[in-house]
């Protein structure tokens, strides 16, 4: 069973939340971020090349132009591979654990799996930064202290930053999300 909802962030890009129900013991939540816009890409490329051309007219060295092309290509590849996240997925498997995957625009996938034995709780945390931002995070147990918490792992690291710019009425959806994930987690 699939369910899709879309939100929009302050820049006008479209954020989509997809909920998949595989079975009573396995659910997946998938947040897709807005894609790389052609407008911003063109703007950055033009700026860099204009600056390089300006330097070239000053120095009369054609190496500057080749260097500018090189830098633009490498920068774009680096941005797509290391910075631009396309999709963030949260897979919850009953009595196994929670898996968080971030897929980058270049196709790279970065996965973290947290075993159920290490999860203490899944909570919604509030951060006060200019205004109140709500983000979902997982509390991990401390191996040394039975009641302590060793780490707080935020879920949906990139998308939640963008969702926080969304209007308050969409924030109400998070409490619903919280109740549903807590029951799936053991």
């Amino acid at each position, binding site marked *: 069973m699939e369910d899709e909802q879309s939100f929009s962030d302050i820049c006008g890009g479209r954020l989509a939340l997809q909920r998949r129900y*595989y*079975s*009573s*013991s*396995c659910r*997946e939540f998938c947040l897709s971020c807005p894609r790389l816009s052609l407008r911003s890409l063109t703007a950055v490329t033009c700026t860099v090349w204009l600056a390089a051309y300006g330097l070239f007219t000053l120095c009369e060295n054609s190496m500057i132009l080749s260097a500018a092309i090189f830098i633009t290509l490498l920068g774009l590849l680096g941005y797509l591979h290391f910075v631009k996240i396309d999709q963030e997925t949260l*897979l919850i*498997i*009953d*009595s*196994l654990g929670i*898996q968080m*995957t971030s897929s980058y625009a270049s196709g790279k996938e970065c*996965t*973290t*799996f947290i*075993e*159920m*034995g*290490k999860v203490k709780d899944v909570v919604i945390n509030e951060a006060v930064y200019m205004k109140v931002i709500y983000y979902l995070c997982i509390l991990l147990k401390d191996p040394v202290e039975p009641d302590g918490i060793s780490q707080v792992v935020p879920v949906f690291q990139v998308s939640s930053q963008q969702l926080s710019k969304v209007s308050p009425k969409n924030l109400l959806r998070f409490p619903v999300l919280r109740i549903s994930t807590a029951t799936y987690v*053991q």
Partner: protein
Amino acid sequence: MPGMVLKAFFPTCCASADSGLLVGRWVPEQSSAVVLAVVHFPFIPIQVKELLAQVHQASRVGLAVLGTWCHRRQETEESLGHFLEGLGAIFSHEPWLQLCRERGSKLWSCKATRRQVPPHPGAPYEDQVMLVFYDQRKVLLSQLHPPAAVPDRQAGDATASAGGLAAVFDTVARSEALFRSDRFDEGPVRLSHWQSEGVEASILAELAKRASGPICVLLACLLSLISAASACRVFKLWPLSFIWSKLSVCEQLRHRLEQLTLVFSTQKAENPTQLMRKANVLVSVLLDVALGLALLSWLHGKDRIGQLAEALVPVADHVAEELQHLLQWLMGAPAGLKMNRALDQVLGRFFLYHLHLWISYIHLMSPFIERILWHVGLSACLGLTVALSILSDIIALLTFHIYCFYVYGARLYCLKICGLSSLWRLFRGKKWNVLRQRVDSCSYDLDQLFIGTLLFTILVFLLPTTALYYLVFTLLRLLVVAVQGLIHLLVDLINSLPLYSLGLRLCRPYRLAAGVKFRVLEHEAGRPLRLLMQINPLPYCRVVHTYRLPSCGCHPTHSWGSLCRKLFFGELIYPWRQRGDKQD
């Protein structure tokens, strides 16, 4: 545990095996069944139980028959189904798994039944089952980081409290005895597992294992001879021991000798970490020697050593000339500052005389330089790190005059600062109390005050001159130290980079596992959930961090703050103190 879904870990290699019995380990705390192999028909139940007891004794892993596996050809093989259900009576196990698959389709069905009365009312007789597929070969060969506490072998069937998935890895890794027989063996029981098509082995690996024994013994003897010779009494006499401690080449050779002793020691590695360390050291030494030989062949071709020797003396002359110009400049009006004429001339002439002596020594040595360089260049065959250490030592020797000037300037400046601080206290009417380590007020006599103030004034007005000489020579010394530091950094990098681990991460990423990742396979309503468990490899930065080799220990011992403080007060700095040296 109540409420937990039953997880059945099934090896992907057995997905196409014929029908039979499932053999593996049941972990009750995680409610998971780790299937290790499939026993095919025909078999005699007694022999199956004997095989399991044998494997239990060899590996201390409690194996049992977990259930049945049915791989049907057509729908009409109902008799097989009934036969398999009857087996549940012979091999009793709670819960009894029944996995079934249609040949050629992706439809699986699982059932887990319990015979006994459930522990509390309301619990079902049948459990919900989740299938997790895993690649047996990769899970066997991989190593989880951070390593879970290895259960004691003597403790028998140790608890799986070391994390649920670490228990799966542990079970598969320790059940090697089960995977030794393949389908070409004439044993009583026919098994299907990852090695059932033929046991994996490599001729080169076997030959290397056989040869490594005698080679290790031989090299260990040789290395112990060399260490005994170097620990000989002759080298502990004063001039030699002093020189040995100052040269970085000796430190590097000693480090390499220690590492080689570790690699070729006749003791077997106790755990995988030690094995990786040995492998890393061996690869690092081999790369070092290869780079050194490349450097050697480059140096000795086209008479480069001759060219180098010819260029060396003019360069040293040039440096000395530049220093002379610098001193002449300081003796005049440097940067428009007005120096105290007499002191300036004294210091300038003193340093100029030293410089003159140095140039004479260089010219005396010049006919022998080529010979010396040629023989020193041969040492590059011991490794690139040795060659770089020698380079660093040659730089230190050639700039010895700069070091001397720095020491003179620093001592003079230090004395001046000490005198100034104590006379300043006198000027204010205070005194340093040595007993209480603090400043106390003190009443001085008139003549004490008079002489003290006079001396204070003299020192204050002579301060700019001394400070300027000190500043110039300290900067030169810091420049030389920075160049030496860069060379040491490069040597450290070659020494400590774990190349074998990086190569393993590149070519066999499943060997170094940071964790696992799951993928949900095709799912149909009413069918059990199927997941694929894959190994999540360790990121490169963590590989380097975990398997870094210990380096020489030639790291700066000061922080920036203490360095600035020492420079201000004129204390001598030795930023590249080697391990074991006494503090000055």
